[in-house]
C-alpha cells in the first residue's frame, strides 16, 4: 500500500505541476520543447530535474487541449524545430492553475505549521 502511494504522489505532482510550469515558461514567449526543459531547470536553479520523457506527452496534451499552439520554425542553429506558444485559453488556464496551487500551498502550510 505504502509503495503505491509514493508512486501515485510523484506522478500526480509531476502531471499537475508540470503543466503549470510549462505554461508559465511560455509566458515569456514561444519556445521549443528542449528550450522549455532548460528554462525550467534554470529558473529553479537546477533544483528541479524534469524527466524529459514526460515533457513531450505533456506538451502534446496541452496542445490538444487547446492551451498551446505549435509551429515548425528554424531554431538558432538553423535546425527545424517545433515551437510552442501560449494561447488565450492557455493564459486563462495558467491563471487558474496558479491560484489553485497557491490554495494548496496555503492549506498544507496551515496543517504543517508548528503547533
Amino acid at each position: 500500500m505504502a509503495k503505491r502511494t509514493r508512486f501515485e504522489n510523484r506522478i500526480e505532482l509531476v502531471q499537475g505541476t508540470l503543466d503549470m510550469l510549462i505554461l508559465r515558461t511560455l509566458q515569456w514567449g514561444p519556445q521549443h520543447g528542449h528550450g522549455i526543459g532548460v528554462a525550467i531547470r534554470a529558473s529553479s536553479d537546477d533544483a528541479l530535474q524534469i524527466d524529459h520523457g514526460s515533457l513531450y506527452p505533456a506538451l502534446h496534451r496541452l496542445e490538444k487541449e487547446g492551451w498551446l499552439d505549435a509551429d515548425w520554425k528554424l531554431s538558432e542553429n538553423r535546425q527545424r524545430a517545433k515551437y510552442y506558444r501560449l494561447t488565450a485559453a492557455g493564459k486563462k488556464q495558467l491563471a487558474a492553475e496558479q491560484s489553485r496551487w497557491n490554495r494548496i500551498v496555503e492549506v498544507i502550510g496551515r496543517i504543517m505549521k508548528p503547533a
Partner: protein
Amino acid sequence: MPITLKRMWKRLQLRVWRRTADDRDLADEIQFHLAEEERLRIEAGRSVADARHSARRDFGNVARVTEITRSVRGLASLETFVQDLRFAVRLLLRNRVFALFGIVSLALGIGATSAIFSLFDAIVLREIPVREPARLVTLSFAMSANRRNNYMPYPHFAQMRDTNQTLEGLFAWTRTPRISLGFQSGFGGREEIVSSVRASGDYYPTLGLKPALGRLLTRDDDHTGSTAAVISHGYWQRRFGGSPSVIGAGISLNQVPYTIVGVEPRGFVGVNVGVSSDITIPLRAGDRSGAGSKIWDDAFATWIEIMGRLRPGVSLEQAAEDLKLIYGQVNASAARAAPTDTFAARVGREAHLFVEPGAWGGLSGLRAGYERWLQLLLMMLAAVVVLASLNVATLLLSRSEARKDEIATRLAIGAGRSRIVRQLMTESLLIAGISGVLGLLFAWWASHFLLRVALVSSDTLPIDLTPDMRAIAFTTLVSATTSVLFGLLPALRATAGARHSAGRELSGPRRRVLERTLVATQTALSLVLLVFAALFVRSLQNLWMQDPGYDRTNVVVFSVDAGLAGKRGPDASRTYLSLLGALRAIPGATAVSVSAVAPVSTSYYFISSLTKAGTTEFPNDRRLTIAFNSTSPGYFDTLRIPFVAGRDFDLRDGVHSPKVAIVSEKLAARFTGNPVGQLIVGSEGVHEVVGVAKDNRYARIKDAPRDVVYLPMFQSPSIGYAPTFEIRYTGAASDILRSVRDVVASVDPALTVFQATTLEARTRESLSRERLLAMLSTYVGGFAVLLACIGLYGLMTYMVVQRTPELGLRMALGSQPAGIRRIVLKDSVVTVLAGAVAGLCASWLLVRFVRTQLYALEPTDPGAFGAATLLLISIASVAAYLPAWRASRINPVIALRRE
C-alpha cells in the same frame, strides 16, 4: 475543452492519411531535443560519444515516450478502434454474467419495440405499392357530425368521374369477401371459396400497375357481358404455382363463367390494407354473379368505395372543391326528383364530401382498429427500452467504480479524457450492437407471431412484413440511442472524478445519488407499466364477464352460403329449412336455430329505421334507427334469451301469413303499454309485434344493448345472405362439428361450411385485440418490474460491498444483525418509495390517455393501481432484503482486516 473551429479543422486534417507525417514530426521533435542536449553536453566539456549516450539515457526510452505521446494525441484511426473493440470483447468475456444479462435484456427490449414498429409500419405507415401513391385521394362522406362513411352511391361516382376537371382518373370498387370459384378445365380440384373485388374500368390504369403476366382490366372490360378476370400475385403462386398457363384458363365464379386474362404485379395486395383479394372482375360484370346488387341508379344506396389520382400540378384542395361541387349537384337533383322524400332533402342539406390523401389506400378496418393500439404498445415498449438501458447504465457505473484506479493511471500517464471516454463508449457500443442484431432477429419472429394472433381468421397474412429500410433504420436508431444513454453517463463520470486528483476531497461514505436516482427512475417506470397492464387485464375481464344477454356456453355456430352452391332466392330458403331439420337429428344437439346475424358477428350488421312503434311516432326526418335480425323459430330458446312478453316465431308465421316481429326490451319501452299486438312501421314494412325479448348485445359484445327488431327468417320468400346456424349441445364440440359437416354434405354436397366454431371461441376471437393488449402489457409490465428489481438488487449489493468496512466496524462495536439489516434497508426503502411515488403520480397523469381502450373501467381505477403497487412493493422487498440479509452476516473480523 476550448477548441476553436480552426483547431478542429486542423485536427480533422491530421486524420489517417496524414498520420505518417505526424509521426515523422514527432520523431523529428525528439531527435531535435536529443541533438540539442548532446550539443549542450559537448559545450560543457564531455566527449561526443559520452554526450550522445548520456543524453539518450537521461531522456528515457525513446520508443516508449514516442508511444505515450502518440496515444496522447488520440488519433481516431481504425487501429485504435479495433484495439478498443478487442479490449471491450475481453472485458465482456471476463464479466459473463453481467454481459449476458445486459445484452439479453436490451435485446428483448429492442426486439419487441422493433416488432411492434414493423407492424405499425406495415399497417399504418407504409404506402400502397402503386405508382406515386402520394397523388392518390380517397373519398368519403358524412351527414353533419356523424361518422364518416367510405361507401358511396354509384350516380355520384359516375358524375364525378365524367365531369371532374382536376383528376387524372377516378375508380370505384366493392369487395365480396366470399365467392365460389370453380375450374372449368385443366387445373382440376373442387370448388373453393375465394375473396374477390369488383372494380371499375379505371382501377388499374389510375393506380398505375403493370401486370406480372398477361394484361390487367381496362375501361373496355367494364360492361355487363365481360368475362375478363385478373388474379392476384399471391393467389397465382398459391393456387397455380406461378404457372404461366393460367392465362386464358376458364373459371366460374358462383357458377358464372369467366376467363383469366392476367396476374397482378407482386407486392400489390389490394387497396385496403389488411384485406387481400384473390380475384378481380369488372364492376358491371359482377352483376351476373349475383354477389352484388343492381343499384346503379340509386342515389342513396352506398356500396362502392372510391379513390382517384390528382392531375399533375393540381392540389388536394383544388380537387376537393371540384368534387364537392359535383357531389352537391347530384344530391340536389336527386332531391328534386323526389320532392316528397324528406330523407332525400335532408341528405341534400347535410351530406358533405371529404377528399383526403390516399397514399395508404382506402378504408382499412385493420388500420382503424389497430392504429391507436399499436401506438400505445410502442410507447410502452419504448419505456422498457429506456428501463433496460438504465439498468445497464447502473451496472456499468458500478463497474466503472472498480476500474477507477486503472483509469486514473491512464489519465496520469497523459491519455486524453476523450480517448478514455471513447474507449468506454466502444464497450457500450459493442453491447448495443450485439443487442441490436439479436433484437432484430427476435423482432422478425415476434412481428409474425403478433400478426398471426391478431388476424386469427385469415389463413394467409395479407401484410408484407419484410423489414423495409424504415424498420431497420428504426432498430439501428434505438440501439444507438440506448448505447449513448447507458454508455456516456458512466464514461463521463468515471473520467471526471479521477482527473484532478490534487483537488480530491476526503471521501466519506459515498451517497451514490446518481445510481439511486437511476434505480428510482426504473422503479417508477415499471410501476407505470404495471398499472397499465392491470388496467388492460381488468378491462378484458369486464368484457368477458359481463352478461351479454344470452348464454354463450355449449353453443356451436357455423355459416353456410347456399348462393355459392348455385341456389338463390327461394331455393336458398328451402335449403336452409331442410338443413335446420336435419341438424336437429344430430345426437347431442339439444336446440338448433338459424339467424341472419350471428350473436357475435363480423360479417353482418343490419340497420334500418322505424317511423312508428305502436302509437309512438317518429317523423320522417327523425326516424328511429334500429338494428334488425332475421331468426328462425327456436333462436331465443337455443341462446337462452328469455321472453319478457309474448311468444317466439313458429311455423304459423309463413310466407303468406300476417307479417310479425319480435322487439327487444329497450324498443318495447318506447311503446305505450304492452307492445304485443301493436304494430311497427318502417323501411321493412308493417309488422305486428308478437313478443318482447330481453335485451342482449347485438353482433358485438362491446356494444351496449340497442333497439332491435327480430323478423321471422322464413317469412320472407328468398334469402340473399349467408346465415349462421346455432346449436346448443351436450358432449364434445368436436363431435358436434364433425356431425355438422356430415349433415350438411348429406343435404347438399355442394354446400361448404365455414367459420365453424363454438360461440365462446368466436367471442374470444372478437376480443383478440383486447386479449393481445392485456397479454402483452402484462409481459411488458412483468419484465419491467424484473429489470427494476434486478437493478435495485445489484445496486444494493454493491453498496453493501462498499460499506463492508464500516458495517464490520459497527458489528465489532456491538451492533445486532437486525440493526445492520435496518441500516442497509433504509437506503433501499427510500429509493423504492421515491420511485413508487413518482410512478404513481406519472401513472395518474398518463392513464387518462387510454380511456378509450378501457371497457367499463375508470382509468384511475383504484383496484388496478393498488394491485400494481402491491406487486411492485413485494418484489422490490425481496430484491432489497437479500443484500441486507447478506450484510447482517458479515464477519466483522474479515471486514476489518480488509481495511
